[in-house]
Structure formats: C-alpha cells, structure tokens
C-alpha cells in the first residue's frame, strides 16, 4: 500500500461505493429501461445489497479505479480475448483430427499477483483458454492441467500461460 | 436466407447436444457425467436465447439468466460433493 492511501476513504466505504455502482449498472442492463421508478428501485435495492455484502466480503474493498488502471484492464481484456479465440481454434484442431494424439500433463505455474480479485481473474483466464485448466491455487503456485505437452518444455509452457495476461492484471488490481 | 442459416445452426447445436447426452450416458466416472452436464447446460443457455430470438420475446432472456445461475450452482454442488469423498 502506498502512503497516499492514508488519506483515502475507509476500506469498507470504498468497497460499498464500487459494489453499489456495479450493481446499479447490472440492474439497468438487466431491466433495460430507464424509467424513473425502475432506476429508483434498482438504486435502493443495490444500495441495500451493497451495504450488506461490502462489509462481509473484503474482496470489494481492494478495488481502486484510475485512468491508468482502466487502460491496463482494457489491455488485459484484449489480450484475453485474442488468447481465447486463438486457443479455441487450436482446440478444434485436436477435436477434428482423425486420431486424437495428445499427451496430457500437469505443470506448476508461479504467479506474483497478491490481490484476491487479480488472482481470481488470472486463474479464470487460464482456465478459459483451452489447453490449460487450473486444478489448484495455493500461495504463489498454481497446478495447471495441460492438454498437450508433446515436445514442449514444461517450464516454457508455464511461462507462456501467464504471458500477456499477468502484467496488465498486476497493474490493474495490484 | 437468414432463416436457413439459423436452422442450420440449431441443427448443429442439436447434434452437439446429442453427443453430450451420449457422454452423459456412457461416461465411465461420475466426473465425466457432471462434465457432460456442465457442457449441456451452457448449450441450453444458447438454445434458450435462440428460442427468445425466434419467438421475438425479450423476457425469455430472464429464463436463460436464471438457468445459468442455477446450473452453475448444480455443477458446483456436485463437485463439492465428489470432493468430500464417498
């Protein structure tokens, strides 16, 4: 934590505000109307839920927003989507091959992310890119099941998994 | 033209569902079956959304949303049960 945070809003209040804004946005998207009464009801319900959950789940207090963080989040999203499409096509090559030739295995991947939400995003991204599936996450080590390790160096595979995703996530969530 | 393509898409999804059901029935272990169910539920969300498109009813999307919530919980519950051991 930087020294600037001493003057920042209290942990729980910050979590409340972000959770509230997120829930209101989701309410508006789900109900898809901007009628006054609907927005009012959504704001009230979201405020009640945010007040209830923000204190209990400390994950929401760790979120900070600044233009730089938003930019890095967009970078992460782009890298993730490219990876998703690329890896899905690679998966289709295996699935439509006349004979499935794979050599599954397990590698350990090290992460330097500390914040819970960043670690969750990293694990979910690795799980969503086919060819790798997170089996467990403990401390700074992830157990990842790999679809095909033929002729590949496992430590190289492990490094390639977090490449392009971990750095923006670290800058976004810390 | 667009209708024909939609019909082809629905037929493809249906074939995928058939293969998933085969795995559900044949799956040698419980994990295989639950994995098949997981795949089938996500496919069902797409099918419900497609039906909403064909019927032109916005509110059917609510059904897809709630189905997503409940099916996720079902898979999670079975996974936790398997983890706890026999």
């Amino acid at each position, binding site marked *: 934590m930087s020294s600037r945070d001493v003057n920042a809003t209290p942990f729980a209040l910050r979590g409340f505000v972000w959770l509230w804004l997120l829930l209101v946005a989701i309410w508006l998207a789900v109900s898809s109307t901007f009628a006054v009464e609907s927005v009012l009801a959504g704001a009230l319900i979201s405020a009640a839920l945010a007040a209830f959950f923000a204190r209990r789940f400390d994950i929401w207090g760790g979120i900070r927003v600044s233009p730089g963080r938003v930019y890095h989040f967009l970078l992460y999203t782009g890298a993730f989507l490219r990876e998703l499409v690329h890896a899905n096509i690679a998966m289709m090559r295996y699935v439509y091959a006349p004979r499935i030739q794979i050599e599954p295995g397990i590698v350990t991947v090290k992460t330097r992310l500390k914040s819970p939400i960043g670690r969750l995003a990293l694990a979910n991204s690795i799980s969503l890119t086919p060819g790798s599936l997170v*089996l467990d996450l403990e401390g700074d080590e992830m157990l990842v099941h790999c679809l095909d390790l033929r002729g590949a160096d496992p*430590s190289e595979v492990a490094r390639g998994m977090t490449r392009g995703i971990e750095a923006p996530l670290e800058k976004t969530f810390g | 033209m667009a209708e024909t393509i939609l019909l082809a898409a*629905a037929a493809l999804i249906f074939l995928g569902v058939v293969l998933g059901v085969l795995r559900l029935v044949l799956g040698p272990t419980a994990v*295989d079956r639950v994995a098949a169910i997981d795949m089938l539920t996500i496919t069902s969300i797409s099918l419900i959304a497609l039906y909403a498109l064909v019927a032109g009813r916005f509110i059917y999307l609510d059904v897809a949303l709630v189905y997503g919530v409940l099916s996720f919980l079902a898979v999670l519950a079975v996974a936790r049960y398997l983890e706890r051991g026999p």
Partner: protein
Amino acid sequence: MTELIGSIVILIGAVFLFSAGLGMFRMPDAFTRIQAGTKATTLGNTLVLIGIALYFPSWSLKLLIIAYFVFMTNPISSHALARAAYGLQGRCGGGVRLETAGTPDERSGP
C-alpha cells in the same frame, strides 16, 4: 443485412458448441473432456449471444450480462470439477484416468 451477419455469427457459435460436444465425446479422459467440453461452449455461447444482439440491438445490454455471467461462472465450475477429479484420483486410485507426464516437480524443473 445485419440479420444475415447475425445469423452467420450464430452459425459460427453453433460450430463451436458442436465441437464442444464432439470433444466431450471423443476425448480420452475426464480432464481432457472437461477441457474440451466446458470451454469451447464459452466462446460458442458468446458468439450466439452476439449474433442475437445483431438481430435486436435493444437486447444487447441484457445479452451482455448473460455472456459476462457465463464468463464468470464457467471457469469456476470447471475448476471445481477438475479439482474434485484430481482429489478423487488420489483417493480411490484409478477412478479417473490421467496420463501424467511425470510428477509436477520434475516436469516444471527447478
């Protein structure tokens, strides 16, 4: 015109959904089945929802929420399932087949 593009996007999504089913059927063991089955569906489902959004732009916000929700929940549930399978394999020995390419330690190197 947008309807035609939308239906083509839906068809591409359907191809991914079908290959998820095919992968689910063809893959040799539980882990690879989870990999093939539950993740091609994520992209397929997203593409189908995008296609529907092209048909009805006014629906797109709600479709976005559904897609986001699937993006959130699908990796978590498949992770929980794979972890359960991994635990089961150690406990009852051979309940789930997994051709591990060596132990984790020796594969990942020092």
